[in-house]
């Protein structure tokens, strides 16, 4: 077994997919030097034709990638900061996402958008700390938020192989993750399939991205009081509803910890669908960022607007106390 970091897992998936399929290529800012670390070493292995540095023209290079995808290539577009997804929202949600339906199935746009370091990096302030995966779940662009090195590898590989646009969020809070893995066993993780990160019987905690680690820690702390099942959806759109329903059949109680703004975030969708269709014996609860959150610069304020283990703990306890 080998110790693999989350960041290296992403780079490994990229390298493996580029080796497997010569139509896969990477473009983005400073990808040759590999400022984000994810693309480090790729230039040497695959050359400048497949590892392309772009000027600060996100909108054009996003649609440029779409154009290459229409011709059969499989671009991986790296964005240095999450808010660049706001800047390119038209190109992703209104162009890449809509091509297949609007052309009546003539076109496919197999492009992957990768954000290594989404959410708060602490001290990067208002415009560099967003976690907008729920925006893509709303418009319907496939979106994954891996929590572990193995899933970072497997979900990025699947995103690249998928025939639709896929956005890959690698939370800054997860980049440091390391795991002991069998490199030979690394393989694509299917989109839309969650996993039970810890089985339990009293309450299901749906945790997204870096919060899976928090949920596991809290579950462990509470093990003498309550049996917590931790469900990691891995893909936030399309969501693994069957997996969640199965978990709620067991527990009947639901808490979501989600680093999105509260209103219309992924947590809202999980609660709404569970309330409509699944077994709930007590009211479900969310632990999220506040409505309309803009992360302030000062460290304590930045942290104060992110979901915390303490909030998750008290919320689980409240749900267990509920009649």
């Amino acid at each position, binding site marked *: 077994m080998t110790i693999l970091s989350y960041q290296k897992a992403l780079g490994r998936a990229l390298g493996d997919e580029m080796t497997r399929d010569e139509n896969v290529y990477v473009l983005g800012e400073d990808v040759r030097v590999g400022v984000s670390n994810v693309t480090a070493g790729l230039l040497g292995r695959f050359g400048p034709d497949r590892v392309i540095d772009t000027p600060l023209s996100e909108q054009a290079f996003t649609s*440029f990638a779409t*154009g290459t995808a*229409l*011709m059969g290539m499989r671009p991986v577009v790296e964005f240095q900061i999450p808010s660049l997804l706001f800047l390119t929202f*038209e*190109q992703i949600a209104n162009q890449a996402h809509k091509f297949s*339906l609007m*052309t009546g199935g003539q076109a496919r746009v197999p492009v992957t958008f990768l954000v290594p370091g989404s959410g708060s990096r602490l001290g990067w302030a208002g415009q560099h700390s967003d976690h907008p995966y729920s925006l893509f779940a709303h418009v319907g662009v496939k979106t994954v938020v891996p929590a572990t090195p193995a899933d970072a590898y497997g979900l990025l590989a699947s995103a690249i192989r998928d025939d639709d646009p896929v956005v890959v969020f690698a939370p800054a809070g997860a980049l440091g993750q390391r795991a002991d893995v069998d490199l030979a066993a690394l393989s694509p993780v299917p989109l839309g399939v969650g996993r039970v990160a810890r089985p339990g019987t009293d309450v299901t905690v749906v945790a997204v991205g870096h919060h899976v680690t928090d949920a596991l820690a809290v579950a462990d702390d509470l093990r003498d009081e309550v049996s917590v099942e931790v469900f990691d959806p891995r893909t936030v759109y399309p969501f693994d509803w069957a997996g969640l329903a199965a978990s709620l059949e067991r527990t009947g109680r639901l808490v979501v910890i989600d680093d999105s703004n509260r209103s219309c975030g992924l947590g809202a969708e999980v609660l709404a669908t569970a309330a409509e269709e699944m077994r709930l014996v007590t009211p479900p609860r969310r632990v999220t960022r506040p409505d309309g959150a803009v992360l302030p610069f000062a460290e304590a304020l930045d942290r104060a607007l992110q979901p915390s283990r303490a909030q998750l703990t008290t919320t689980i306890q409240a749900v267990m106390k509920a009649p």
Partner: protein
Amino acid sequence: MTGSPAVAADPAALYRVVRLIRRFEERAIDLVRSGEIVGGIHPYIGQEAIAAGVCAALRPEDLITSTHRGHGHVLAKGADPARMMAELTGRSTGLNRGRGGSMHAADLSLGVLGANGIVGAGGAIAAGAAWAASRLGGDGPARVAVSFFGDGAVNQGVLLEAFNLAALWRVPVVFVCENNGYATTLTVADAVAGGVCDRATAFGIPAVSVDGMDPQTVLAAAAPLVEAARAGLGPQFLECHTYRFDAHHTWEHKARPRYRSEADVAEGRSRDPLDIQGARLSDADRLVIDNEVERVIADAVAFALGSPRPSPVDALEFLYASGFRPRPGVS
């Protein structure tokens, strides 16, 4: 055969394309009036020389991206008028199986990457497609992409960004600006600081400005630019001065907003690409073509109106190329 180099030199072939587009648009307007085309169209009438001339300079394997005013481009690149009309009338037999309509008509088998509802959006897509196509083509001759857009588009950031990428990476793309003097109601003078061609030359892209009412002038200007791009000289820019004879959108036929003076319209319509190219043929030859085009258009309308409409149960078909079926809106 439209769009193949064979016909490029042939005045009759150019006339036929202009005539085809003109009659297609006139009939389409009728169908808007009669309610067979829902949502209206942006008529290309008056601008036919550009699509005809530019596409005559292209090879079948070349690519184009089009605009909200795209019928002319799609037809000139060789799309079947019947399937195009079926698309505008929302039929399953349409180019896009009735999913796209006027603003998204596409035929990828002909290199028509689609009309686009967002002004300026096609340029970066065309650049990427041309870059990829040439790369995938290996040592073969480059496949050139033409991106058509209006004067309004040169004020869109993403298009200017695309000029930069295309120039930096020497992409075989030709940017064709159809300058009809207006973006809806706004004049070029009120919208474009500096000149239209300056927007391209600023990026080191060679730019040419020509009379966009004469198909042969357009073809003569476009051909060397297309071949320059094909030869690896990087992107090229062509501005065609033209005039929109009809409404910005058929919605105007009812609303009648006032923004062009009688004089402006009369002056603009005084030079008609149909007459300019028609004058190069004998009346007899012209009549033969006109009659043939009438049959093509009549057949197209008959085909369209006789075609089935897609079923509402399939409304979500094609949403995901992977075949994934999303949840419905009500469970």
